[in-house]
């Protein structure tokens, strides 16, 4: 890792590693971050709140033999780093021995060169302009339909930051990245009835965001839901919107992380190489796709990001690994050690999930479904999905599909099933793809499932 866009953070990480070895660690790893961010919340055409923030911190993993400990802190002075390093070493003393635990080895290869992770648009766009953007998002929703009565909040957020890593085994490097996104919840009303709709856009810079499209998406959805009724309970064909497909893909991706697989807590355990899904469903994890917000040259422990095919020809091709799970079964890390921030140690997680698009337009998917339900929103994912058993039962709303076309709006029902059963029932994936920030970061598309259980009246 020769490039060093953030030399100061790299130095801080290096000093933290030294402090940890001085404090008694046999090996150590440090991850340092520094970032600036802005958030604008707009309501009723006026700024409700404006946040400007800067943050920095470091997280240290220390190994004593095969015991691992972690500590983090916000003080990057020598004294602060020493305190964090000592805490990490102290933590390691508490852990039990684990023969697979060790500092990650340097990868034999250079991390990929990825252009465009940082867009100067975030740093260059004055706050007054992004405020205007958030106001336009709100206005676009209000202008989209007469029935759209208000917007709960139009939110714009951007962030520009650097991350650096250093280890006692000689791994070192840093990278910078930016992100900008906007979302809103529009409310449409008729009489005493209120319906809501969500719109969003994500990118690397405010210039990537189409304020009018984001606002209109929320307005369209809210207005379309007016008059929604509860469907009858039944088993029927279901088309998932690209947002819902993304949440579903996130559920699949989570169950493919080797950590839970190895501990017998995944419906995919012992299924490697087997037929587990419909051939229509082709899925990969790709930490190098320039369009994905999880893209980076290396993962949370310095291993180069890469592309890992997960499902193809109906077969389960791979699990996702970090260095620990890889060592546990003599495999190679797939570069999927992720960190939410310096406040958490790396753990196996998806980077960007990429669903291979099919050939059918949404209209054709609906026509294929014939009579069924189009799901535009699911709720209660964190409670209604059991990642160990693979069973799920979540709240949903959407539209009826009648004679192969969208019909009346539906709400207050559930969809339920089990992961493997649903994977087998996927009949087709749509052609239209979109990056969706639900279920992680997913390049998603609508999806037709042959049969799902709808729970309504």
């Amino acid at each position, binding site marked *: 890792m020769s490039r060093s866009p953030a030399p100061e953070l790299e130095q801080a990480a290096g000093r933290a590693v030294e402090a940890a070895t001085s404090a008694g660690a046999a090996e150590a790893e440090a991850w340092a971050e520094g970032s600036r961010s802005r958030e604008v919340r707009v309501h009723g055409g*006026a700024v*409700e*709140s*404006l*946040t*400007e*923030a*800067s*943050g920095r911190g470091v997280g240290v993993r220390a190994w004593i033999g095969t015991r*691992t*400990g*972690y500590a*983090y*802190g*916000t*003080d990057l002075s020598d004294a602060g780093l020493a*305190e*964090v390093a000592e*805490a990490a070493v*102290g*933590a390691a*003393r*508490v*852990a*039990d021995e*684990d023969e697979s635990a060790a500092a990650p080895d340097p990868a034999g290869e250079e991390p990929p060169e990825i252009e465009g992770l940082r867009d100067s648009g975030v740093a260059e766009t004055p706050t007054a302009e992004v405020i205007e953007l958030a106001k336009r998002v709100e206005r676009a929703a209000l202008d989209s339909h007469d029935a759209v009565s*208000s917007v*709960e909040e139009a939110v714009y957020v951007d962030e520009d930051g650097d991350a650096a890593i250093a280890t006692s085994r000689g791994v070192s490097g840093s990278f910078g990245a930016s992100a900008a996104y906007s979302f809103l*919840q529009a*409310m449409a009303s008729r009489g005493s009835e*209120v*319906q809501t709709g969500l719109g969003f856009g994500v990118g690397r810079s405010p210039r990537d965001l189409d304020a009018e499209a984001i606002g209109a998406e929320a307005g369209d959805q809210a207005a379309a839901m007016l008059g929604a009724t*509860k469907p009858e*309970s039944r088993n029927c064909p279901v088309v998932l919107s690209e947002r819902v497909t993304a949440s579903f893909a996130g559920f699949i991706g989570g169950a493919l992380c080797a950590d839970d697989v190895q*501990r*017998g*807590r995944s*419906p995919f355990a012992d299924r490697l190489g087997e037929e587990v899904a419909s051939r229509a469903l082709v899925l990969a994890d790709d930490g190098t796709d320039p369009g994905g917000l999880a893209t980076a040259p290396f993962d949370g422990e310095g291993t180069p990001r890469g592309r890992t095919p997960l499902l193809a020809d109906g077969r389960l091709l791979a699990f996702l690994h970090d260095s620990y799970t890889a060592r546990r079964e003599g495999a190679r890390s797939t570069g999927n050690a992720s960190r939410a921030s310096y*406040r958490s140690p790396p753990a196996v997680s998806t980077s960007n999930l990429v669903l291979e698009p099919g050939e059918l337009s949404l209209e054709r998917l609906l026509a294929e479904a014939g009579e069924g339900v189009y799901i535009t929103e699911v*709720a*209660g994912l*964190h*409670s209604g*999905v059991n990642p*160990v*058993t693979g069973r799920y*039962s*979540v*709240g949903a*709303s959407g539209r009826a599909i009648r004679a192969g076309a969208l019909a009346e709006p539906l709400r*207050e*029902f*559930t969809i*339920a099933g*089990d992961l493997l059963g649903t994977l087998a029932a996927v009949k087709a994936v749509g052609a239209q793809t979109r990056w969706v920030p639900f279920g992680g970061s997913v390049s998603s598309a609508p999806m037709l499932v042959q049969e799902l*259980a*709808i*729970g*309504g*009246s």
Partner: protein
Amino acid sequence: LTLVDEGLATRVLERALSRGGDFAELFCEQRRGFSLSIDESRVERPQFGSERGAGIRVIDGEVTRFAHVDGLAEEDLLGAADVLASALAAEATRPLALRAAEPPRLQEIEVDPGSVPAERKAEVLRGLDERARGAGPEVSQASASYSEGRRQVAVFNSEGLQASDDRTRVRLGAQVVARRNGTVETGFETLGAHRGFELLDGDPARIAEQAARKALELLGADPAPAGETTVVVGGGFGGVLFHEMTGHGLEADAVQKGASVYAGKLGERVAEPLLTAYDDGRMPGEWGTGAIDDEGTPCRKTPVIEEGRLTSYLYDRLRARRDGTESTGNGRRAGFRDLPIPRMTNTYIAPGEADPETIISEVERGFYAVSFGGGQVEPATGDFVFGVSEGYLIEGGRVTRPCRGATLIGNCLQALARIDAVGSDFEMKTGFCGKSGQTAPVGTGQGHVRIRGMTVGGTSV
């Protein structure tokens, strides 16, 4: 502990208002935490965390400007105050002199968990692991986690307020996976409080046994039926339902934006007279308890529904000012990086008069939801959904077979109005509530509650 001295706080407030603004506030925080888990009978993931930082806000008319910094260095605090002031161009507003802080009414902590050796915490986890595995040969996996946190906060504002709090919380969680032939089930149980390590006196490993019992029980479960039925919600964890379907709709930010089905309903009958409910941030030792909220307002007990009538919303300062009323002590923030928003503390349905057994025996056919994995509500429409982690069929007035994969869905106002029995039993449980990207510890509680006519979503159609 003094996070920042009065002199510095005063200078920060002066700088923040140096170009105008109605109100300025400095929120300082130091947090320390430790967590540890056991998995595959191996103690792992020991983790210490330590953070200090501050959030400064200036309110000018209806606009809130907010800046936060890591660390409490004078130059960083003054720099952040300057960034906020730079957006305005009026005459300086003079903050009132800081009044002497009243001594905080702190929750008594008998044993500071930070003073307990980490090995002792590892022992507790080993005890949980052993108990879970001992619950039966069908237990195939057990894991458990321990976490402790201490948040020391200090609030200063331009109205002369200075206040502080010192909140210590300890929590244990146990998860068990059970297998029988091809069937896999999970069970989860927690124990947590705004208390010290004394929380774990006695027999903390009982929660592992309870988690195991749930998983084992579910091995014999049938798929949940889908359709409309009478639902009896269990005590304790069942309070999540009230938290979601009513509590969120009472938070004043949602109400003021018309994004709550409870907007405009103050004083109206929203439930049968048998229902009374509170938000109470002063319950001794409870998970959502504090001396003050994160704006320095003392926590208090607020009746939200009295004998079926809606009596109060939950306010922070900003929303209270808008409604010309007082904060109810519900201005909470996940940390110094977040703005305060109106949030619940400990929210519960007060014990009623019905015998919990009678509540069930009166149901000819229904569903008994004992605990939830969690839930979600859309405050604007009132639609909610809950994953049931432990549920049973009620047949002929008796609890019969366990069901898996059930979800409760419904509409807040309807479901609240259909509560026709509240049990005399009562229990509080801990939860983490997410709102606007901020996570807060909240308590939920109730006794058994019966709701006539609710949709159960399941796989059996």
